[in-house]
């Protein structure tokens, strides 16, 4: 930069000086001969050593060389140098004001040493002009220590002061031995000039003769240095005078396109900008007038509330608007399938329909047709008629496209194994029944119903052969068999048996035809059986209660003298319709009987201690399939074909209605906790309900292939079983947790096979042993089986 700056300045100076040259060409031309007096003496050659002294002396005489002077002199020397070649050089004189070198002058020039000029040039054109000058001047001052430094008083603007004659034609001193005066008024003597012979000899001998010029001002010969010559040549060929100057410097972009913090230009604002605008003034005047006139209302100051509410929804932009979202989620319309061979005007013969096929095609519904056209063959494309259905098809296509919204289908990448719930292995859920242990044989017809006594020692079964049998569980021994008398009613099959769950009561309720019989089996603890008999015997009916009330069921006790008493018969309850089920309440005092055809009397609740019957429901809600008492609370579950209703017996209201999603409920069982029930249905399903959670099934199991006939819970173990017409009993692990947040764990653990299917009936009932993880099942093959 610095260098460039200098050179730039130099050029400027050059131009200005050239103008000056033009302006005062005449005066300069006068002065020019003297300019060569200026010789730098610091770098004399050895061959010009003889002139050293004189040069020095000259300097001593004219020490005031200033920059301006140098410049000027350089200008002149430029001109001079351009002038200076006459014949032997190709330098041509183009400046009128340039000096013409006479032979003398040339002599003078030739006498001047090369190095002087060299120095001059250095001073003039190298970058560090000043510093070099200073250096030289220092040298000078060292040498001329006794003299005052010319630069102390010298300003660089002054002219060459080695010869003080000024800018006069030097011809005027032709006659004199001196050429001018130095600054102290002493004569500057002309250097000794040889004659023509000397000149000639010099010309012949001196190799530097051709570049020797004479400084007119001092009359000294100056040998032009190589640089001077280069300079001259550069000027002549219109190049940059300084050979060192680079024409193609690396580009430094001052004015970048980027915005800069600090302005490159810093010009002051224009004066105009301080003058108030006339038009603004006019405008303001108008507005003031409008305000005064009331045409314009000033804006109201904002209230605080408004200011407070001045906030922004920062992320508002993130929510795409409906339209942009729709654009982004654009789904291209599905492409029409490309025409196939069948659509060709000349299809291959196998694509053409035969007559039968065509007929079939005609008879099909248009929606069912695989192709909506008949392939036809034409011998040439020309013969193909216009397609009649074209508009129609386009229209339908449009309808398809806009009536059926397109939606991106998000495909989920799910490992199918992950969908299978993580269930524990059945092996870890033991104990549960796994194998058949004992077969109880004795019945001659299908065994419909079984029940286990509360201690688990006895089993009672009711069969279609009209007999009730009591079995010893551990051995399979039939301990007792009661055959019902087939009266006038014909077939007396036992529909339901239920052992009284109370351990201190020895009674079995048997539903047969229209009667419910309470039987004391006489098994187990003698004390209990005797007590039961005594209690029944000591009953005395209270008259007032039975008066004025509708009698739903007819209670009658069997006398001890009766033959049936020996069999254990104790009480008979005559019902108006056929009884399908009896079930005991957990305390053993109440029991319920179900008459599916009883309409409004389909469910009766009997109280044993008071020997009376109640009808809890006035209206029939459907065909009742089965009823169950809640194990701990006063609830009654009533299963109709589709629904299970839960009644609160104390409040006498419906507390829940369970949607079973089944077509026909067959059986129902309630968990010992009372919050979960399972329902088996004739459409092969088993539904688990969590009463706390929902009225819909918590889980539905479809493991059976045929109708589910019976379901049951184990009282202690987390097991439940379902018996089905496919001859199997499926045992499932059904753990109910005390933690309300934990859902029941249901794992099917075992399919128990053993029963044969007869008359399309398989297993009809299944009951768990009260204390062991054993399940009893009875079936149409007249057997009862124990699985352990």
């Amino acid at each position, binding site marked *: 930069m610095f260098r460039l700056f200098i050179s730039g300045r130099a050029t400027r100076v050059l131009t200005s000086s050239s103008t000056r040259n033009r302006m005062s060409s005449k005066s300069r031309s006068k002065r020019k001969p003297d300019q060569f007096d200026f010789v730098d003496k610091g770098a004399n050659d050895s061959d010009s050593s003889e002139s050293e002294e004189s040069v020095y002396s000259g300097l001593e005489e004219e020490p005031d060389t200033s920059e301006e002077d140098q410049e000027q002199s350089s200008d002149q020397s430029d001109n001079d140098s351009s002038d200076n070649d006459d014949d032997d050089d190709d330098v041509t004189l183009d400046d009128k004001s340039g000096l013409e070198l006479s032979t003398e002058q040339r002599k003078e020039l030739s006498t001047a040493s090369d190095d002087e000029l060299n120095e001059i040039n250095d001073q003039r054109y190298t970058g560090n002009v000043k510093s070099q000058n200073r250096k030289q001047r220092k040298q000078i001052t060292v040498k001329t220590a006794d003299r005052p430094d010319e630069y102390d008083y010298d300003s660089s603007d002054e002219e060459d002061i080695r010869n003080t004659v000024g800018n006069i034609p030097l011809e005027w001193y032709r006659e004199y031995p001196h050429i001018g005066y130095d600054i102290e008024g002493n004569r500057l003597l002309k250097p000794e000039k040889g004659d023509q012979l000397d000149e000639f000899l010099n010309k012949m001998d001196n190799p530097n003769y051709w570049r020797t010029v004479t400084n007119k001002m001092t009359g000294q010969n100056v040998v032009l240095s190589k640089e001077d010559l280069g300079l001259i040549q550069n000027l002549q060929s219109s190049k940059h005078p300084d050979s060192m100057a680079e024409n193609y410097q690396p580009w430094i972009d001052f004015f970048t396109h980027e915005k800069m913090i600090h302005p490159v230009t810093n010009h002051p604002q224009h004066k105009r900008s301080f003058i108030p605008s006339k038009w603004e003034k006019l405008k303001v005047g108008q507005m003031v007038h409008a305000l005064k006139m009331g045409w314009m209302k000033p804006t109201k100051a904002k209230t605080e509330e408004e200011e407070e509410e001045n906030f922004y929804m920062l992320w508002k932009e993130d929510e795409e608007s409906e339209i942009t979202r729709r654009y982004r989620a654009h789904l291209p319309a599905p492409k029409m399938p490309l025409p196939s061979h069948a659509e060709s005007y000349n299809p291959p013969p196998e694509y053409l329909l035969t007559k039968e096929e065509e007929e079939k095609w005609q008879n099909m519904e248009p929606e069912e047709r695989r192709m909506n056209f008949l392939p036809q063959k034409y011998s040439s494309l020309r013969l193909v008629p216009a397609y009649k259905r074209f508009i129609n098809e386009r229209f339908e296509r449009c309808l398809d496209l806009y009536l059926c919204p397109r939606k991106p289908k998000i495909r989920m990448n799910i490992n199918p194994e992950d969908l299978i719930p993580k269930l524990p292995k059945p092996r870890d859920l033991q104990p549960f029944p796994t194998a058949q242990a*004992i077969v109880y044989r004795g019945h001659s017809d299908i065994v419909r119903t079984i029940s286990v006594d509360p201690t688990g020692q006895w089993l009672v079964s009711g069969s279609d052969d009209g007999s009730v049998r009591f079995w010893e569980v551990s*051995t399979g021994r039939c301990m007792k068999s009661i055959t019902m008398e087939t009266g006038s009613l014909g077939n007396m099959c036992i529909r339901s048996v239920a052992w009284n769950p109370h351990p201190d009561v020895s009674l079995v309720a048997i539903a047969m035809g229209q009667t419910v019989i309470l039987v004391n089996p006489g098994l187990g603890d*003698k004390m209990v059986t005797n007590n039961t008999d005594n209690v029944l015997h000591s009953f005395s009916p209270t008259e007032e209660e039975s008066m004025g009330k509708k009698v739903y069921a007819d209670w009658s006790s069997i006398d001890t003298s009766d033959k049936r008493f020996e069999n254990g018969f104790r009480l008979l309850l005559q019902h108006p319709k056929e009884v399908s089920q009896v079930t005991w309440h957990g305390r053993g005092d109440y029991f319920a009987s179900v008459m599916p055809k009883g309409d409004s009397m389909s469910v009766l609740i009997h109280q044993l201690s008071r020997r009376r019957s109640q009808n809890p429901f006035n209206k029939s809600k459907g065909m009742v399939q089965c009823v169950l008492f809640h194990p701990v609370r006063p609830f009654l579950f009533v299963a109709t074909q589709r629904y299970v209703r839960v009644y609160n017996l104390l409040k006498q209201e419906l507390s829940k209605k369970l949607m079973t999603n089944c077509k026909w409920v067959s059986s129902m069982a309630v968990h010992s906790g009372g919050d979960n029930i399972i329902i088996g249905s004739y459409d092969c399903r088993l539904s688990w309900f969590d009463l706390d959670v929902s009225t819909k099934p918590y889980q539905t199991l479809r493991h059976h292939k045929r109708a589910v006939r019976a379901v049951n819970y184990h009282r202690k173990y987390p097991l439940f079983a379902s018996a089905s017409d496919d001859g199997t009993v499926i045992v499932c692990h059904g753990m109910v947790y005390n933690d309300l947040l934990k859902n029941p764990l249901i794992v099917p653990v075992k399919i128990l096979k053993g029963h044969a299917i007869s008359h399309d009936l398989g297993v009809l009932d299944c009951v768990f042993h009260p204390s*062991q993880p054993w399940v009893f099942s009875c079936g149409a093959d007249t057997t009862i089986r124990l699985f352990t």
Partner: protein
Amino acid sequence: MMADENTPHVQAKFFTKQSQYSIPDTPYSVPAAVGTSELSSLINQILKGSDDSVDAGIEFDFLLDGEFLRVPLDKHLENRGVSSEDIVEIEFVERQPAPKPEDSLLHDDWVSCLQGCKECILSGSYDNTVRIWTTTGAPLLTIPGHSAPVKCVKWLSGDGGPTCRFISGSHDQTILIWEWHREENSVECVHACRGHAGSVDCIAINEERDKFVSGSWDKMLKLWSAAAVAEGDQEEQLEAPTKKQKISKKVQTRVPVLTLSGHTEGISAAEWLSRSEVCTASWDHTLRLWDMEKATQTSQMQGTKVFLDMSYSLLNRQIVTASADRHLRLWDPRTTDGAIVKCTYTSHNGWVSSVSWSPVNQYLFISGSYDTVMKLWDTRSPKAPLYNMSGHEEKILAVDWSIPSLLLSGAADNHLKVFQYNDEKHGT
């Protein structure tokens, strides 16, 4: 010895504890795939070589590390993880003779319980009667007395005297102590033990024969005096169970000396382990040990299945139990830690209803199952029994081995089968 050089051979050393069959202690090279019969003939040859007096053709059984060889030798070694490179030490014992079916005693109803003494067999039946048979199969007496099926019978003293006593327990919740006058062939009920509130399922008499315990479905274990006269006996008129059987005698009612509760289900079997210690097996999956002098429960062993029967051997002091699954389990009541089930014997296909130790051989016991087969077991052969004794057509309800030479089984086909077992050679 064997000709074929290509087959792999095993170095075997034979020894026996039966001195009459001792052979020199030299290892023999036998083919690896050799079975029991070949080994037996080999031993016979060796015996023949050493002593001419021994007749050939004795069947031997071979024991490796206390377990019978039932498969070819190499397979046995492979199963056990024993290297066939080393010398295998094989113990040989004379094979147990096969029991021979001898007699079948027909009852009127299911035979629920039985016990033999020296010359007689006592059996209880579901027709509420107790019967006495001779060991040769002749019926001596049919005793009605109970009003419900008899569940257990035990000889109190049956050793040859003119008067024998026995005890029977029944579904009618009573235990009757009977006196049988052999010469007159008349029976008399001397005591009626009342107190149980459920069917009496088991009776165990102690060694001194002055006390017995009974276990019942009512979960109670009761200790009774078996003496002829005991405190608290009361005169009582025994009801005639039916009008036909006009046995109306004066019997004394006896009350329990001790009642122990602890079981949560019915007790199915009881045994005296020592003078004061009783072990009971129950439906609540536990075996409990009771101290009868302190009247407390001393320890408890937890099983996984219902126990149906139990037997205790005085010879090896171990208990074998029959469960409501297919397995028999061997327990050692003396161990308190570690695996209390020492071995499991599996071969039955149904519930094992009863089990009985041999009175003379500490390794042998028999078991009867609902799969109608009675099996003779050696404790050293857990995978396979020594002999299967079939013949019954229904569930076996009781087995007994009180008489060393007779194996008895009673079943639901109304038969009591008697098997002759000749075990004189193994008088250990």
